[in-house]
């Protein structure tokens, strides 16, 4: 099976046209400001440069966004991912802080604990959405509200510093000259794409998004699939939590992953995945995440106050959703045709 087919089954390259153009425009803008924007150099055998920096910083967002992509494809939404990031980081840091010089086994234990905690959080959301039947936004709102409380409970309200070299390697180390976090994100994306698009699972998820009732009547175990999708979203959020806590060398229950859920939703939307469900593209989501990170990089490099990023993001979200909206297209078409008519009359 071809790789391109793994990434998008419907719409093909046309669906990815807009995200690609946006990313290219952003890179072009950066090149105008700084001609060496795309330059890479090696230092101590590691690659350095703006593109590597953007990839490195985008890795947690990519991880969260691929989980979010699947959730949104089932017509759901998961707004608890930021809180899960905080919980996972807190869980790992708490375990690491039990020994002054953490052993390798303890680091492994911390990593597994963080992933398990994330998976459990996702499963909790999954139970509420698929078996209890709550609206996804409300079901995940519960964990979003309580999650930061739980994270602070784990860290006793402190910011726990992390010193274990093996743990820090995960988010800050390099392998073959490329940051570990980029490797992790790449492997996760490829594994997910293989699992979802290499099997019928992708088709099932799209079917649930298109028509949940019909999917159930056809005999698919849609409840189990939706449950698994939320569990997966929790797992990817936990992976992001590990990367973030390892990168900043501490676990902060209050601020780790703050507003990450919004960035993830934005990345998914930018990538052309419909919020109405039934259509998704991993490649689009990754492009979306890269666009967001490049945008942040650009605002810093141009010298716009970083706070303005929020306003720009708001404008981008609105523009993308208006472009996606069929009602807006119909409005534009009728406006255009009336304009043409009007001109005709004037002649």
């Amino acid at each position: 099976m071809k790789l391109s087919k793994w990434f998008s089954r419907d719409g093909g390259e046309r669906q990815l046209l807009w995200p690609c153009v946006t990313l290219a425009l952003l890179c072009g803008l950066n090149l105008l400001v700084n001609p060496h924007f795309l330059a890479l150099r090696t230092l101590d055998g590691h690659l350095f440069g703006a593109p590597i920096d953007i990839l490195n910083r985008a890795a947690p967002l990519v991880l969260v966004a691929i989980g979010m992509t699947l959730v949104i494809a089932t017509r759901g939404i998961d707004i608890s991912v930021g809180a899960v990031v905080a919980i996972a980081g807190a869980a790992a840091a708490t375990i690491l802080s039990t020994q002054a010089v953490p052993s390798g086994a303890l680091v492994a234990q911390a990593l597994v604990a963080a992933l398990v905690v994330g998976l459990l959080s996702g499963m909790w959301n999954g139970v509420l959405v698929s078996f209890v039947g709550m609206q996804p936004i409300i079901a995940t709102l519960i964990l979003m509200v309580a999650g930061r409380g739980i994270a602070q409970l784990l860290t006793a309200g402190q910011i726990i510093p992390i010193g274990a070299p093996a743990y820090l390697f995960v988010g800050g180390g390099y392998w073959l000259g490329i940051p570990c976090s980029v490797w992790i994100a790449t492997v996760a994306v490829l594994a997910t794409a293989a699992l979802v698009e290499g099997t019928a699972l992708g088709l099932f998820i799209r079917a649930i998004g298109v028509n949940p009732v019909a999917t159930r009547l056809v005999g698919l175990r849609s409840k189990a699939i939706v449950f698994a999708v939320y569990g997966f979203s929790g797992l990817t959020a936990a992976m992001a939590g590990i990367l973030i806590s390892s990168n900043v060398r501490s676990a902060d229950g209050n601020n780790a992953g703050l507003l990450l859920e919004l960035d993830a939703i934005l990345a998914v939307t930018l990538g052309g995945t419909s919020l109405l469900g039934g259509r998704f593209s991993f490649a689009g989501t990754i492009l979306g995440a890269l666009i967001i990170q490049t945008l942040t990089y650009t605002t810093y490099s141009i010298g716009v106050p970083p706070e303005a990023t929020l306003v720009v993001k708001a404008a981008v979200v609105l523009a993308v959703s208006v472009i996606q909206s069929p009602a807006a297209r119909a409005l534009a078409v009728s406006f255009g045709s009336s304009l043409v008519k009007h001109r005709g009359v004037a002649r």
Partner: protein
Amino acid sequence: MRRVFEALARVVDPRTLPIAVTILLFCALFGFGSVMYTGFFSWQVLLDLLVDNAFLLIVAIGMTFVIVSGGIDLSVGSVVALTTIVEAVLSEHMHLSVWIIIPIVLLMGTVFGAVQGALIHFFRLQAFIVTLAGMFFARGLCFLITTQSITITDPTFQKISAFRLNIGVGSVSANVLIALVTLAAAIYVAHFTRFGRNVYAVGGNPRSALLMGLPVAHTRIGVYALSGFCSALGGAVFTFYVLSGYGLQGQGMELDAIAATVIGGTLLTGGVGYVLGSLFGVGILGTIQTLITFDGTLSSWWTRIVIGALLCAFCLLQRLIERHAKSVTRAGGTGAVATSGHGHAHAETPAPKPDSQVLGRAAG
């Protein structure tokens, strides 16, 4: 067991059950505090619930209208922050009077909300996404104006902030009076005006509302404008409360407002809810905070965990009521419900709402 439940349901109407539970819970929490901690059971502690949460009450009132209309507004917290900043800048840097500043910010909030409503209605966008963008936008504007915290030194501001009205042995601030007037006005608007009825109708079933010839566009835009107005008023009240403007103010307030509304018995599917319920919702959130303060050994993060747990309990209760209402109608045999498939995981589908609810509402 089933017969007992049905008998209970007849006594307690499904539409009023959540609010009854809320009021009971509020009394239980307050009673618990009174028994456990000395000095808790006093008129002033009760009044302080209002004093400390007046801004949240006002914001939650706006949120109630939005949720009853079937939408959601995530921008409220950042509009509150924007209001505090604009007030502080206008007062400290431009030296305008309070009486000019307040109308300006209220107008700003209303226009902000109306624009969101227009986007949601005319472009058929999801309320969640539009108000999310609004949240980013307002928060970004705050930081573009200033990243500093500005203290307000204007004497009129300070006078209003220090104002206390004695009620019995306790006292309340001007904020409480503003909040109570807003509450009274909101109850009037919700239950005694055409706009209020339209909000319930649109929330119950937008398609029916449209077919009935109700002004759906006006109502939808009006609801978000009202929420924007309430956020700005909440922001003004918050400014009196803290006497400063800061862009990080009100972070997570949208969550508190949604939680208060849901705990207050408003159904998230729209069409059902009471403004008065939100008063008790805010009261419960405030009581939890007061309980934790009185206890002294519990840390502040327990507030969030308890609020999350309560939110969960109330959502489960809502699901239970919905399912029960549905099963009753099924037994009655309208037939239409059986094919609606509403009981599925994705309650967010624009598919028809459970007819039982609509029928129940129409009957009431």
